[in-house]
């Protein structure tokens, strides 16, 4: 690794948004996982993680996992690569499409836009934990009933997003759904089924 310097907070000019995010995360690393190196930046002593691999402790679907990761690795890539939890998909890889949606302490997040090292300490829930053994969750079943999937690549993200949305809106109106499930893209065009699944799964009425 030759670009140690580029990862210091003071060297942010000319970097992309993603690079900046990766740099920011270094400054925000938790004291609990203090690295060997500390620099003084922005008036504070800041521990430096990496650039090589460090142990990152993640609570995924109720299991404590401790992969060795470079600090620049996103939560999505940590899940899909070393942890082999592949339900969340990489599509846009920059926080637009929602295919990588997971829950962080119950909140919907795009796993491509959070670093694994920053997800330490949070309860991470992926699509894999929403079904109990072989039984589909009610939202998954609604997706099947209303044929809310075609190629299926966006489907896990949509199911996670819909699950979280329905927790917040147990009796959603069509307008709630229109606004609440607009953060995920589908290319095959399954929105009609998703709309119906979100509305009818909770015993709502189709407008």
């Amino acid at each position, binding site marked *: *690794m*030759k*670009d140690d310097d580029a990862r210091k907070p003071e060297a942010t000019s000319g970097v992309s948004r993603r690079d900046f995010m990766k740099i920011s995360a270094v400054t925000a690393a938790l004291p609990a996982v203090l690295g060997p190196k500390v620099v003084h930046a922005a008036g504070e002593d800041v521990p430096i993680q990496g650039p090589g691999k460090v142990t990152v402790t993640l609570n995924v679907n109720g299991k404590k996992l401790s992969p060795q990761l*470079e600090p*620049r*690795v996103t939560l999505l*890539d940590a899940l*899909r*690569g070393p942890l*082999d939890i*592949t*339900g*969340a*998909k*990489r*599509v*846009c*890889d*920059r926080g*637009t*499409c929602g*295919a990588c949606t997971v829950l962080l302490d119950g909140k919907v997040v795009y796993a491509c836009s959070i670093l694994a090292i920053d997800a330490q300490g949070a309860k991470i829930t*992926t*699509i*894999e934990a*929403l*079904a109990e053994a072989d039984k*589909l*969750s009610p939202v*998954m*079943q609604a*997706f*099947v*009933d209303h*044929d*809310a*999937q*075609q*190629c*299926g*690549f*966006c*489907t*896990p993200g949509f*199911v996670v997003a819909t699950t979280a949305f329905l927790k917040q809106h147990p009796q959603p109106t069509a307008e709630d759904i*229109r606004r609440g*499930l*607009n953060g*995920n*893209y*589908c*290319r*095959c*065009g*399954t*929105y*009609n*089924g*998703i*709309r119906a699944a979100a509305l009818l799964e909770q015993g709502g009425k189709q407008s």
Partner: protein
Amino acid sequence: MTQYSWPDPALRPLLGKKIDRVDGPSKSSGRAKYTYDYNPQGLLAGKILRCPYAHAKITSIDTGAAEKMPGVKAVEVIQGPGTEIFWAGDEIVGVSAVDEGTCEDAMRAIKVEYEILPHFVSDAEPPKNIATDTGPVSKDDFEDMLDNQVPDEQVISAIEKRGISFKPTEKDYASYKGMGADPSIITALEKAKYVEAENKPKSPYKKTATQTTGTPDKAFTSAAAVSEGLYGASCIVHSCLETHGSAIEWPGEKEMIVHISTQNVSGIAAQMAEPLSVPASNINVLQQNVGGGFGSKFSVDRWDVTTAKLSKKASGKPVKNMLDRKAEFEVAGMRPSAFARVKIAADKDGKITAWESRSWGTGGVGGGGTPPLPYIFEIPNQRKQNTAISTNQGSARAWRAPNHPQAAVITMGAIEDLAAKLKMDPYDLMLANMDIAGPRAQTYKEEFAIADQLMGWKKNWHQRGDTAPGDIKRGMGLSMHTWGGRGHNSNCDFTIHPDGSVEIKMGTQDLGTGARTIITIVAADALGIPMENVTLLYGNNKYPPSGGSGGSTTSGGVTASTRRGAVNARDRLFAKAAPSLKAQPEELEAHAGRVQVKGDPSRSLSWKEACAKIGAVPLTVRGQNPNKDEPPDLTNSGVGGVQMADVSVDTETGIVRVNKMVAVQDCGLVVDVKTAESQVYGALIMGISYALYEEKILDPVTGRVLNPNLEFYRLAGLSDIGDLKVHMMTGKGYDERGVIGLAEPPVVSPGAAISNAVANAIGVRVPFLPLTPDRVLEALEPGGANASV
């Protein structure tokens, strides 16, 4: 005589019902595995360093530093010094390393120097003074025509009139046949006269000779109404959510396992064999699920060959190399643009009498597609001419119904404008021209009536220009479309096991269309057993080959081969079971989980009991489509569809919203109404997306794609789609035609219907898709409808 024909409606326990997608649970639970998810122990990452310039020559490449970096396993130069590069994003060097981050570090360490050359990326209207291309057809010209699916008669006419400047080899002929060239084209090539290539100045424009039918000038002069306008659709990108790519390993020196995101499981090995010098028989191609294809995933791409080479260099370890989103936008295919100036005429009753079009568009360096103009309507007097523009961008690939959506936008737009000129309802004008609407005219007529009911067209339609007060204007538009959709070549091995379980092996794929579901339905329906008893093994080139999933050919192909396999297996089973029922095999039927004497349930065996008569070894037969020895033909060609759109346009902001869309669609015998409807809903949504939002924008200064990502290349979201109604034509007149594909046709009309609805709402035509706010506001300016491109 074996009864292969589709059963009578009364004898279809499963066919034509609404049945859940069999892969629904695996997809909704996230368990479905895609190529992108392939993640074995020891997997290496692969990435491609791409050219940042739209036109350049490579002068030097230095990979030394990259090769020495820790974690880097292989480096492969794809295009070396001296190579001319014709689009930004083209492949230069492949890298494999322990992880993606290390690949990226290595790519930064590779030094490539270029001589930058001038580029051309504009698909604006060509200058008027371009000479018609009269010189001989070069090898590039010819292959571009094939790539762009130029109509056969145009290709043949060009070859006959202009001669050819190349001498095709046997290998060329084989490759052209592989590219789908009609035998008549091959004959024309063989007979063509050789003409030495002209040394003409390079021009991006390839202008075809004007084609004239009838007497257009006379027809325009004597017409009751003549309308002139500008129409078209911009370049768009397939945007498969799973990007292109593969994961490849070498278990032996001459042996490969290829996981690839493809529409063409059975066709991949043959394409890989030659560049990698491996017998196709030693290549195992695997794919369970594919995250979208839409016409862009038929081939082995250069990056896949590179992935294989990287793996070989890395001792055969698996290397996974999926394109990143930017590359997907730059190099993995797009739909060509098409624009046209059109003049169209009718008599006072709305009978269309004459058509004149000057069209142009681009599909990358190879020029552009030629939209079939005028679309559907066989207008008696025509004059038309097309100019293909060669631009420095990644080449076009088949995009769902190649050339048809563009042809519909241009033709249906012109017809709607003509109706407005006559103050006629376009619904009436189109129906007044059914005598020139081709073989599907009766279908359109029936569909128009149903669409009217679902949309309330006759009740709510108003003359052009919403006169209600306020800035928000509302309007309705319609369009119609056609497609072939005959089933492709398909084979399956159909096995009944002695325990009663049923297994089908077929080298096909399911793009999310419901292929798995309809194969399972057809098998279970023929055997009178539950779908759960049927296991479908697919997505492996070691199974009997089935065609690529393109051109809406899969449904007809896979259902026909499955039906024939099932009937063959059933008849063999009847022969085994008949003695114990003291009956002749032809007296038996398979019904509701039993094998019984027709109409006599008292003389029956349970399915399991009957299968136990097979003996110790399973019964396996072949099902094949087409098969002239097993009549009748179970598939067919030619469908029709009608769509209507209801939109609101904010004339202050230029924002268009779709309130409602109606699609009425025929596809012969519908196997599963549920997945068929889903496909039409999906087409409407994809149509709304390309009608209002999607456009691949190239920077004239740098020649690069300006929006190679999903935030600036906008897709329709769940909030953009309005109320959607789909009606599938079924029953008499449709069912008996057999199974016909459905993927392409419903995506043809949405752009045209929405464009027409906007014109009806605001009173002027917004010439080009997507109907973005800036284009809407420009059209509302005085003279806007004829604005420059």
